[in-house]
């Protein structure tokens, strides 16, 4: 009994102290990521943390255990709101689903900065959610960058196979549109095959192998992500055609850069996640200080080629 009383006293004291320690004055920004087990988001966190340190902001970074778990992401947003964060930066795990969480942020008057993946505009409008800005790369522009590169290096003459992402996925669709629009300007560039390989390496291998069977004259492959491009690289190697087929990917993963340096791949479009993280935190701080932001903040994209790697 005595012990229990003592415990209660200790708890009460700590409880009181804690209230005093609460107001340290540093603004807190939450950064809720899709996941922390993908290099892309690890880089984003690094960029965000550097900006936070520089600007004197407390940064809370959280992510669900699985990239696709929107419900867990929603829980994290709800919990972050409870801690009284002044701004929320988020990379939505689901463009529509996340709106329910953003409604809660709005109700708590926490401004929202969307990073990397857009929130579904209609769903947001229906729910009356206002986001301060979108920080990310324009996937359409990225696809265009890849297409323009092909037009340049091929002299406007090529027979192209395309490996698409999961159908209906906004990211892949935009990249595809950008690429098609860019090569559409060159009448002698023919797209002979275009099929989904669902973002996966082994599917990239299988699908491209089948394409090669059907069209032995393919001289270029554009993959909407590097994983699929790397699969195609293996299929090309298996067919003994390494160096004879151009491979253009997207994301500039480490493995892809190595393949480019080794000559197995030609180019990949690089995004800059650390830059996204930095801009996201800076934008959040601006919002906290009452500044208005443009609806879109574009983070640069760059084409990585062998020349660029040297």
């Amino acid at each position, binding site marked *: 009994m005595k012990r229990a009383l003592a415990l209660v006293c200790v*708890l009460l004291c*700590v*409880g009181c102290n*804690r*209230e005093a320690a*609460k107001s340290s004055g540093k603004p807190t920004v939450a950064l809720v990521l899709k996941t*922390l087990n993908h290099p892309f988001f690890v880089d984003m966190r690094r960029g965000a943390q550097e900006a936070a340190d520089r600007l004197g902001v407390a940064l*809370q*970074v*959280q*992510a*669900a*255990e*699985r990239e*696709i*778990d*929107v*419900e867990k992401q*929603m*829980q*994290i947003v*709800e*919990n*972050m709101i*409870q*801690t*009284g964060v002044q701004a929320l930066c988020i990379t939505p795990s*689901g463009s*529509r*689903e996340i*709106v*329910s969480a953003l*409604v809660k942020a709005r109700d708590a008057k926490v401004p929202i900065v969307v990073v990397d993946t857009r929130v579904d505009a209609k*769903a947001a409008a*229906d*729910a009356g959610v206002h986001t301060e800005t979108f920080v990310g790369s324009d996937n359409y522009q990225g696809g265009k960058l890849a297409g323009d590169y092909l037009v340049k290096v091929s002299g406007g003459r090529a027979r192209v196979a395309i490996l698409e992402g*999961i*159908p*209906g996925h906004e990211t892949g669709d935009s990249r595809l549109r950008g690429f098609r629009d860019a090569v559409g300007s060159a009448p002698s560039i023919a797209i002979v095959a275009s099929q989904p390989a669902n973002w996966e390496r082994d599917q990239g291998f299988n699908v491209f192998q089948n394409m090669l069977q059907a069209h032995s004259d393919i001289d270029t492959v554009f993959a909407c992500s590097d994983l699929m491009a790397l699969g195609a690289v293996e299929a090309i190697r298996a067919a003994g055609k390494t160096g004879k087929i151009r491979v253009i990917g997207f994301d500039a993963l480490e493995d892809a850069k190595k393949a480019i340096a080794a000559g197995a791949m030609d180019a990949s479009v690089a995004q800059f996640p650390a830059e996204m993280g930095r801009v996201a935190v800076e934008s959040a701080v601006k919002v906290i200080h009452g500044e208005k932001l443009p609806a879109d903040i574009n983070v640069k994209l760059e084409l990585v080629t062998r020349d660029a790697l040297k």
Partner: protein
Amino acid sequence: MVAPGTARRETESPPTAPVRAARGQLPMRARQFGTLIGLVALSGVLWILTPHFLTLSNLLNVAEQTSINAIVAVGMTFVILSGGIDLSVGSIVAVSGVALGMALRDEQPLALALLAALVTGSICGLLNGLLVSFGNLPPFIVTLGMMSIARGAALLITEGRPVSGFQPSFRLLATGRIGFIPAPVVATAIVYIAAHFVLTRTTFGRYVYAIGGNEEATRLSGVAVRFHKTMIYAVSGLMSAAAAIILTARLNSAQPIAGMMYELDAIAATVIGGTSLMGGEGTLGGTLVGALIMGVLRNGLNLLGVSSFLQQIVIGAVIVVAVLLDTVLKRKHRT
């Protein structure tokens, strides 16, 4: 919410014996109390560490976040009490959610859409039950198969895409409040009260314990074990569907990839709550406390800004320690 510890039975006794065998009372009470103390202690620690934990809005927040796992865990408790396991609950959540979503998108009346979800979930559970009891297959294998089948079905009928675009009133199931209590919390309370009643006050409930305690003896004493086992898995499917309704309303979208790994959370809640994986012992009150411990833990670690990797370690450790304590307590009371 639910009176704990009224349901302990002597597991070895035939099912016709009195429900409350006096000798079995104390250990169960003590263990449940232990789990509850764990929850209180955890809350106390969080209260010390962060000013944001012990506020009404956060506690309601935790209750709401816990509701989905808590409801899935009801079905899991029935199954584990009977000595089985159900690995398919997460996939059943997905396929029932998708059924609900598609009905809503086609502008069916809300009641019909909800019914579609509940029927879908129950059918999946029923199939599990039939294969386990009449097919004489191990529950692990049957529900592992269903886990893949239901997930595949959800992906197939949606072509892998989330279903959304529902009438605005549907979301009230998640955002509505009764008094100041969020609707999902009220739904959870109703489910627990009803399930607790079934488990402790009906013959079906008694047979659940009896089958888990000693299936052979139960069969020999004239109970239609196969029928009741089938129904137990159907209950689990039904509970998954009920959770799917809340999940779909919360996200305002039905995802074919929803509910992944829910089976592990539900098993964890059940086991932390003191239900024996061997069957025959446990209560729903314990499961609720178990689910709350997981919910409070996740919430608290978020509030404290603990890295998400460390969170997984802490949650895993809590599961193991809870069961360890449980085992130790059990041993102490037996001797």
